[in-house]
C-alpha cells in the first residue's frame, strides 16, 4: 500500500473527458463521479436480480445500487469513483 496521500484529492478540475459505457462514448467531466455521469446520461447503473434497471439511491457508497464493472473490475461503487478519460464502464 502506498504511503499516506497528501491532504485532499488531486485537483483534476472540470476538464472534459469521455468515458465508454457499454461500448458507447459518454461525455463527462473529470470532477464528476461515474454515477453522476451515468445518471446524467439516463443510463441505469445495473440490472437487478429480476432485471429491473437501477440507479443510485444513497449517493454515498452504502447501497451498491450504482455498482458496475469499471475498467474490468466488477462491483465498483460508481458514486465513489471519478470519471477518467477512456474509462470503460459496463452496466449490463
Amino acid at each position: 500500500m502506498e504511503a499516506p496521500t497528501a491532504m485532499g484529492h488531486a485537483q483534476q478540475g472540470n476538464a472534459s473527458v469521455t468515458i465508454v459505457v457499454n461500448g458507447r462514448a459518454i461525455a463527462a467531466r473529470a470532477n464528476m463521479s461515474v454515477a453522476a455521469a451515468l445518471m446524467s446520461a439516463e443510463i441505469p447503473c445495473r440490472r437487478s436480480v429480476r432485471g429491473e434497471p437501477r440507479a443510485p439511491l444513497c449517493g454515498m457508497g452504502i447501497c451498491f445500487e450504482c455498482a458496475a464493472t469499471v475498467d474490468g473490475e466488477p462491483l465498483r461503487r460508481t458514486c465513489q469513483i471519478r470519471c477518467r478519460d477512456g474509462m470503460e464502464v459496463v452496466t449490463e
Partner: protein
Amino acid sequence: MTTPLRVVVVGAGPAGIAAAAIAAENGCQIRLLDENHAPGGQIWRGYDAGTASSSPHGREFAKWIRRLEASGAAWEADSCVLDSPAPGVLRVERAGRWDDLSWDRLVIATGARERFLPFSGWTLPGVIGAGGLQAMVKGGLPIAGKRVVVAGSGPLLLAVAAALRREGAKIEGIFEQAPRGRLAIVGASLAALPGKLAEGARYRWQTRGVPYKPGWWVKRALGEDRLQGVVVSDGNDHRETPCEYLACGFHLVPNLELAQLLGCRIDAGYVTVNAVQETSVNSVYCVGEPTGIGGLDKALVEGQIAGFAVAGHLGKAAEFLPLRQKLRRFAQLLDNAFAPRAELRALAASDTIVCRCEDVTHGELAECASGRAARLHTRCGMGPCQGRICGPATQFLFGWTVASARPPLYPARLATLAGQVLNGESKPAGITRTPQKPRQTA
C-alpha cells in the same frame, strides 16, 4: 521522548476530523482513514478549503481542514476498513490493495446514512435519497431545471431542498411525514440552540414559495423504467405530482458496522460511550452520529472530546460535557420527532421489493418468522450492501434487529480476505487471532 501513541480514526467527517486534529496537536501519531476522495464526510461533501468560505458550513469546514492540515495528521483517501483480523489491527483496502494498520487507540467516526423505507415504485431510477440526490449533485449531476419532489423525514429535507434550489432545481414540494405537532416540539427546543434555529430559518427563506407539508408522505412513485411522478398523501387527500426526481429519505440511521464488528456495546440503536467517548471495548472510542443522530455540532464536540481523551488530556475533554449533554438531548428529540409514523408500514404492497440487492419482496418477508429466517430463506440482507439499506427497513416493518456485523464489512477481493495478519509496523508481539471480546452473534 516516548514513542507517540498510534491513533487510527475511521471516518473523515466533522467528528473524525476534530478527533484527528486535536489528538495530533497533542502528540499522537494519527492516521485518518476515509472511503471518499476528499475529507468532509456527508455534511461537508464537496467543500474545498480554498473556496468554501461563502457559507457558514463552508467556513466551519475551512477552519477545521486548516487545523487538520496544521496538526500533521496523515489523511488517507479511498481507504475502506474491511475487518479487524486481530486485536488492535484493522485491515484496510485501497486501490485494490490491502494493508493492516495497528493502533493503540481507535476512534470510530463512521457517520450515518439515510433511512430508506419501501413504497410502491421506490426502486425506479429517479427515486433517490434526499441526501443522496444532494451528494450526486455535488458529484456533478446537473439538476438545473429538473422538477424534484422532496419527501421523507428530518431536518435534512429542508437543507437539501434549499441546496438543490440554489443549483437551479424546481422543488415541487417538501413532504414531511412527521405530524405538525411533533415539529412544534422541535421548534420550541431550538430556542436553546440559536445556531440551529438560524440555520433552519435560512433554509426556509431559501425555499420560500415551496410548499412545506408536515403530515404528508409519498404513497407511490410512478413510472415504467424511470420515475415520472409521485403520489403524496396525508392519509385522506391524495395528490399526483409529475417530477424527474424524488429525493426521499426518512431521517438518518447510524453506521454501526465497524463498532459491531469490534464488539462495542450498542444500546437502543446507538454505540454506548462513557464521558470521554470510550466504548465498552478498551481504547476504542466512538464519536458523532453512531452515538446519536445529532448533526454537525454534536459531531464536532464529541470529536474534540475524543481527541483530548486519547491524548490523555481528560480535563480538557471534560470541559465539553455540558455542551455534549445539551446536544445529546437534542439528538434524542430529533429521533422522537422524526420517527416514521405507523402508516408508512402499509406503503409496501406484497409485490414491493424490500431488499434491493436480492429483489426480495414484502410478501416473501412477511412469511418469515425472524430476520434470521429471512436471511436463510430469501437472502434478504445477504447482497453487496449487507443489509445496510433493508436492515433499518425490516426493523421498522417487522421489528427485526441486526445485532452483529461480519467481516468483510464490504465486498472485498479474495486476496484481502485470505491475507495473513501483517505484523511489520505492528505491536512487537502478542498479536493473535483471538478477539478482544466475544463478538455478538445474531
